[in-house]
């Protein structure tokens, strides 16, 4: 199975990073979360109800909808906070945050379970510094419009109805869904990020170059 990969790119001001990332990640997770499964006898199951909540951004002229789950929101905010800290405060820079949905494949001992991604969303972020309040105001509106376009992109991809993991049996539900939350059940996901310095090189590419150079000697 090939992993489906989608890339989004946004340019924001430093203080807009949090909200822009939350808006996009929550929009994706809204579509990739279901209600809690309740398995019954005879191989049937029922699904709980997913509530939604409108969120207004403070630094961007934009509102988005997220799943009504404080636990999920906390987890996403934590990841976004770490990403923002890694990006540095108020400095120009580039980074990329990735939301990866995966399935677990059980392996025999001593091998650990394999995580097989089936959908990866990569959001490239360019952080810009603005000189005055007028530019910031324009940025508020522009970023809001851009995020709207990104939401439309996300919806378009999701509604292609491409591969989704099969609905699991009760014994395998933890291989497909994150059942740790008490109110909703997103597909298993992980959030990773990568920071690029102002020279346009990432830490990983720098290391790769160093190793290559060393081996070439």
């Amino acid at each position: 199975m090939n992993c489906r990969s989608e890339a989004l790119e946004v340019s924001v001001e430093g203080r807009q990073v949090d909200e822009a990332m939350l808006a996009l990640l929550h929009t994706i997770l809204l579509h990739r979360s279901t209600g809690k499964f309740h398995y019954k006898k005879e191989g049937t199951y029922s699904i709980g109800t997913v509530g939604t909540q409108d969120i207004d951004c403070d630094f961007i002229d934009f509102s988005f909808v997220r799943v009504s789950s404080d636990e999920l929101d906390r987890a996403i905010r934590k990841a976004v906070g770490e990403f923002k800290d890694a990006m540095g405060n108020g400095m120009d820079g580039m980074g990329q945050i990735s939301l990866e949905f995966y399935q677990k494949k059980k392996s025999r001992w001593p091998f650990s379970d394999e995580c097989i991604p089936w959908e990866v969303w990569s959001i490239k972020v360019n952080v810009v510094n603005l000189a005055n309040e007028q530019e910031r105001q324009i940025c508020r509106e522009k970023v809001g419009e851009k995020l709207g376009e990104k939401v439309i992109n996300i919806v378009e991809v999701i509604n292609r109805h491409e591969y989704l993991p099969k609905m699991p049996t009760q014994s395998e539900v933890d291989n497909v869904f994150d059942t740790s939350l008490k109110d909703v059940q997103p597909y298993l996901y992980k959030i990773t990020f990568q920071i690029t310095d102002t020279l346009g090189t990432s830490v990983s590419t720098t290391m790769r170059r160093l190793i290559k150079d060393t081996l070439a000697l």
Partner: protein
Amino acid sequence: MDSDLSPQDKKDLDKFIKFFALKTVQVIVQARLGEKVCTRSLSSPTGSDWFNLAIKDIPEVTHEAKKALSGQLPGIGRSMCVEISLKTSEGDSMELETWCLEMNEKCDKDIKVSYTVYNRLSLLLKSLLAITRVTPAYKLSRKQGHDYVILYRIYFGEVQLTGLGEGFQTVRVGVVGTPIGTITLSCAYRTNLAFMSTRQFERTAPIMGIIIDHFVERPFGNMGHMRPCNYRAPGEDEGAYNGVEDSQEVCTTSFSTSPPSQVRMSPLSNVDLCNMCNFRGGVHGEMGIPGKEGGIPQQVPVQPCHGAQAEHGRVSSSKHPTLSRSIEVKGVSPCDVLETTFTRKVGAFVNKPGTQVTTASLDLPFAAFAPRAYDLEENDPMVQPPESPATSSPLQGSLHSQGSGESGGPAQDDFVMVDFKPAFSKDDLLPMDLGTFYREFQNPPQLASLTIDVSSQSMAEDLDSLPEKLAVYEKNIDEFDAFVDTLQ
């Protein structure tokens, strides 16, 4: 087309499409209410939340949607449309967007109705939730209130987009293939928000630009009228709406992990969908009513006749709730305005007697405050402050008002001195009552240090005393230094 579909699947599919259409309308209208929507996630299914999404039902909206559908379902050539438009406080309106639920002939015969179609419809509703916050009408709807309101209209049949003006954009929310056709949900939204009012006010700044064509006769006048995206409290509608034909409908929340041949439905107990309406009662998103404060004030602070027209223009762009009500009285003829008695209340500490005037005698804005021939400037309290309490008589001013039936010119001779009785004071218990306190402290004596008495001191004496003062300050220098340290 339907030959491969089992009767049960056909029945389920019709039910899914019907409730999907109803939920679509709810999501769209609720997104235009002007307030943030928030629903709770429930870990256990209730049996009444269609598509596993907590979307509350506004009874009026459901009623309108069912009325538009008239027992039919969206199908090929029969689209369900929700039209969102804006109506200003002056009565001008403009279509903002049209949401279309359509079906085309492309069928997916292999798709599982009870599972895949249902889940994809759920996904499509989530997409609709996301997209409704992204189109330009969302921001407009969040700012609605005194200047304009948002209206919705549901119609069934052919999609008409001519009211959206030139250059409208279309966004596709999503598609779901079914054995009888492919359901598509899309939105066409206006990009040109310019309009012009044919009722031009000279001093009015246009709210949004110049109208071009919004007074065109509506092509669907017989297909329903615009409704405000307005929610009434549950108590008002519970008895009115009768959903008898749906009272026995249940929503599918049970699935099977077995292979397709063994798929079974486990129907839940019958649930009355009308009971789903437990919308929070605190929603005051009454979009159709300009001005959120209730009631027209009994005494409108009337502006003079010739200024009224200008005032309308200003009011329409103002957000002051009280002033916005003057829109309601714009139908009043000038002569009615002339007959209104304008009662001027005299401030508590004003020495001048109150003056009762009618609007007939006012031909300038705030004319009541203009200087008059009989008012001598030296008697005007605004020019000559009253003397200090020790030498002056108690305040002669009082709160003075008369009934609205009286009218006439200057009424100084009719002025009646009334003891000042401040609100909430008991004047019989304290030695110094509140009124006396007010009078005494209204005109405090001047500070002695600010009094300049030329005869008692001269510049030379000031200079002579300076060295002594400096010596004292030097003596206490440590104290001053310690004080400065505490400030740091």
